[in-house]
């Protein structure tokens, strides 16, 4: 491979990463130099900055593939789309974190929160755009290590510190596994460039083993069963806004990358990884659903729900078709707005009720906070795949993509599981609307950022499915085996 590095494409292909670095630097400098008054408007400032960043990058350009640094960094329009989706999700999380960040024990850590969050986002961007396993690994680590700090950001809270420790340990373990797998690849293929590897993968035993290691490493990030054991504790312990970021953005990026790598690098081993995914999907969806039924803490509950959702996302990966990729991106988008709406409600209720996150605390929420209860209901309906909400459409497309490739029984099992998932989503709805409560959470008014974010999410939940243009737009750029 010719290693001459061409810098001319940096500005055209890498503009998203470069502008994100600029945002991080601005946030860092603002945190350093802003005065007392400046710090008061730090939160709106960051939201606006993020909005500008999204506005500059939302439409993927240039409209053709490109590569940098001799193939280490790849650009494709479809990468631009998933990056925009992740950026929008990050903005929504930022909007929701306002009241948490104003608390006395966190307000001095604001700067760190923004910089760390955006660093993980940058890591995911590099992970998505990687054309070489080293680049991929560096991106993944950049996305993981700051995340551990974020999880432990409420360090005086016992839970949060514990969650941080659990997260970093499992993350290191999974990274180690993945590196081990990658080293075997290098041994058998003699290169780590995606483009060169594809031809040299022939599915021998060593490569199968290393693919399993690699998959296990990413499985931890996506929290698929049996690599999910850290998820519930971490989700429960982490600050709610960090949990929502973790459950959506980090998972979405990892799922997308998994599909890209499986399709691009392991095209010759399709039979092997489809079998592997087949088992993992059934386990993830079923186990997570059965555990979710028993949860009483809403954050743990959504942790298990997100594990099962990850299983559904894998249905798109297993198809390996361009249509599957479109469905995956669409699913991630819809899952993002719905899950962020649910977490937004949990977060604002937690902030205004002195930390209540139990399902029983939500009894009678509709009587006191009808708008939040309705928001939560619609978000859960969308997660359960009930029309006319967007989740119905994204689930249908996922099922269709797997069905098209002949996975009839798998789709059937997944469909039966949607009924189970509907049961536990309805338990929350029942708590809010039906179960009477003598001392429900008092009526309160959320802060402006949360309200904006919830309106955005609800608009997404209602509109994204009924309007087909987003799906059509994504499908223009998708690619498959």
């Amino acid at each position, binding site marked *: 491979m010719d290693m001459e590095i061409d810098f001319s494409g940096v500005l055209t292909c890498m503009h998203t990463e470069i502008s994100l670095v600029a945002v991080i630097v601005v946030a860092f400098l603002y945190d350093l130099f802003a005065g007392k008054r400046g710090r008061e408007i730090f939160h709106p400032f960051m939201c606006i900055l993020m909005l500008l960043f999204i506005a500059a990058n939302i439409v993927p350009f240039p409209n053709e593939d490109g590569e940098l640094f001799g193939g280490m960094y790849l650009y494709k329009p479809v990468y631009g789309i998933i990056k925009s989706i992740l950026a929008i999700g990050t903005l929504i999380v930022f909007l929701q974190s306002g009241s948490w960040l104003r608390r006395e024990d966190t307000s001095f850590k604001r700067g760190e929160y923004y910089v760390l969050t955006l660093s993980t986002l940058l890591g995911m961007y590099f992970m998505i755009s990687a054309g070489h396993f080293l680049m991929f690994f560096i991106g993944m680590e950049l996305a993981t290590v700051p995340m551990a700090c974020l999880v432990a950001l409420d360090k005086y809270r016992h839970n949060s510190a514990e969650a941080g420790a659990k997260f970093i340990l499992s993350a290191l373990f999974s990274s180690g596994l993945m590196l081990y797998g990658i080293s075997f690849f290098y041994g058998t293929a003699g290169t780590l460039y995606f483009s060169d590897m594809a031809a040299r993968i022939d599915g021998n035993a060593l490569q199968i083993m290393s693919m399993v290691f690699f998959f296990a490493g990413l499985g931890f990030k996506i929290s698929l069963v049996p690599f999910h054991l850290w998820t519930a504790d971490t989700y429960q312990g982490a600050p709610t806004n960090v949990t929502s970021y973790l459950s959506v953005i980090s998972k979405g990026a990892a799922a997308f990358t998994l599909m890209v790598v499986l399709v691009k690098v392991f095209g010759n081993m399709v039979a092997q990884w489809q079998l592997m995914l087949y088992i993992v999907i059934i386990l993830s969806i079923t186990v997570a659903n059965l555990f979710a039924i028993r949860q009483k803490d809403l954050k743990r509950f959504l942790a298990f729900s997100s594990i099962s959702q990850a299983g559904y996302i894998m249905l798109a990966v297993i198809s390996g078709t361009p249509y599957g990729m479109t469905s995956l991106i669409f699913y991630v988008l819809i899952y993002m707005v719905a899950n962020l709406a649910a977490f937004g409600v949990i977060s604002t209720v937690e902030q205004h009720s002195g930390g209540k996150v139990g399902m029983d605390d939500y009894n009678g929420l509709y009587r006191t906070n009808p708008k939040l209860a309705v928001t939560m209901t619609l978000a859960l309906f969308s997660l359960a795949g009930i029309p006319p909400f967007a989740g119905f459409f994204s689930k249908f497309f996922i099922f269709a993509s797997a069905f098209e490739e002949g996975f009839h029984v798998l789709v059937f099992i997944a469909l039966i599981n949607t009924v189970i998932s*509907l049961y536990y989503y309805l338990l929350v709805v029942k708590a809010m609307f039906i179960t009477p409560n003598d001392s429900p959470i008092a009526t309160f008014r959320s802060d402006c950022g949360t309200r904006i974010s919830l309106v955005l999410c609800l608009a997404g939940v209602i509109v994204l499915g009924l309007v087909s243009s987003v799906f059509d737009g994504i499908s223009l750029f998708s690619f498959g085996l």
Partner: protein
Amino acid sequence: MNILSLFPAIPLLMMLGLWISRNTKQIHAVMVAGSSALLALSVYLVFAFLGMRAAGNTAEMLFTDSLVWYAPLNIHYSVGVDGISVAMLLLSSIIVFTGTFASWQMKTDVKEFFMWFCLLSVGVFGFFISIDLFTMFMFYEVALIPMYLLIGVWGTGRKEYSAMKLTLMLMGGSALILIGILGIYFGSGATTMNILEIAALHNIPVEMQRVWFPIVFIGFGVLGALFPFHTWSPDGHASAPTAVSMLHAGVLMKLGGYGCFRIAMYLLPEAAQELSWIFIILTTISVVYGAFSACVQTDLKYINAYSSVSHCGLVLFAILMMNATAATGAVLQMLSHGLMTALFFALIGMIYGRTHTRDIRELSGLMRIMPFLSVCYVIAGLANLGLPGLSGFVAEMTIFNGAFMDNDTFHRVVTIIACTSIVITAVYILRLVGKILYGTCTNPEHLKLTDATWDERLAVVVLIVAVAGLGLAPMWVSDMINDSVLPIISHILN
């Protein structure tokens, strides 16, 4: 805008209107305006449809329209109606109209109740106008989920249990339908989701049909109260508030029969012929078992719910006979059962609203106390047991006539068995009427009760007029249905 798209659009507008309403008066105004518009629209549609047929338009579906929705999956928003759907639309709008008046006295969370009620009707209307598999399925599910909250929040008795059971069983059914739809779509070469085009292609391999037919039929059959998947129905109906029971038993259960006919049998004809015997046995059990169960119940709503299992079983029984007469009877039975069961549930709701009990052991001599409601109850009962002159007779006569036309032993034997349900129905209806309406009232509290108010009278009278209208002059509607059933039946048989 296509006239058919108005059917789901009006309830959506009603939801918007309800959202901005400030008091009960405005809410009632919105509901009355909207449901009257729906009723007027469906009556207009009947005349327009008949007019176009009279003018010689023989296309299978009229008023068709199609918009590309999700091009990569060939999903279109396609609408169109034949005689069956026109009849169902008319039925739905009558029930929505009368349901509005039947819930006039509702006090708690009126606005939310009617908003969910309207969402339910969006689903129902949308389902009947759709001729695209995906769109149809979407509307089907839209009609299911509001039931959970409508029963869970506004219901009575074991409402949480019933609501959850109903929702999960119906969603389980719809999971089967979904996989069946994917099977049909990809099995037919994945070029279209339009029902008519898939039927015209007629290229789904028979071995695949054998897999998908039972799945789709059971999927829709759950909603059509197919034995043994009917268990949600008695609990659900007993716990639901009046208007919801009316809409659910009156219209929603018809979605099941309609879907079985229009999707399972029409699109998978070879398997339907091969495997129909299994479902004929199951539906025969539904018919007889439902009627027997109704005999031993003591709760008015349970009696009617089991009676619905029996009558809806008859719908599925008739379409499985696969001849035009029985199928016409099936659609007539959908209409007739929809109207009279809605009438029953409305009356039960009104009686329960006064006496606060539905236990027939605690009720007696109501004829003296509330003569209007009692007389109507007798009429509903007579329609239910198939008295000539009322709608039940026309429907059941046509069904059994058609079913007996098949001259093999199996079909004739099951027809005779199913016929016994008429007698059993007479047993429980007459026993019930005698027990609660006649005799002397022993409960002094009940003596103080009053008869129906104007809104209740309106709801009941509209339904009775429809039941009697269908019974006295069935030809105009049965011709319309028969016209549309013929192409489907001939497609299934060839």
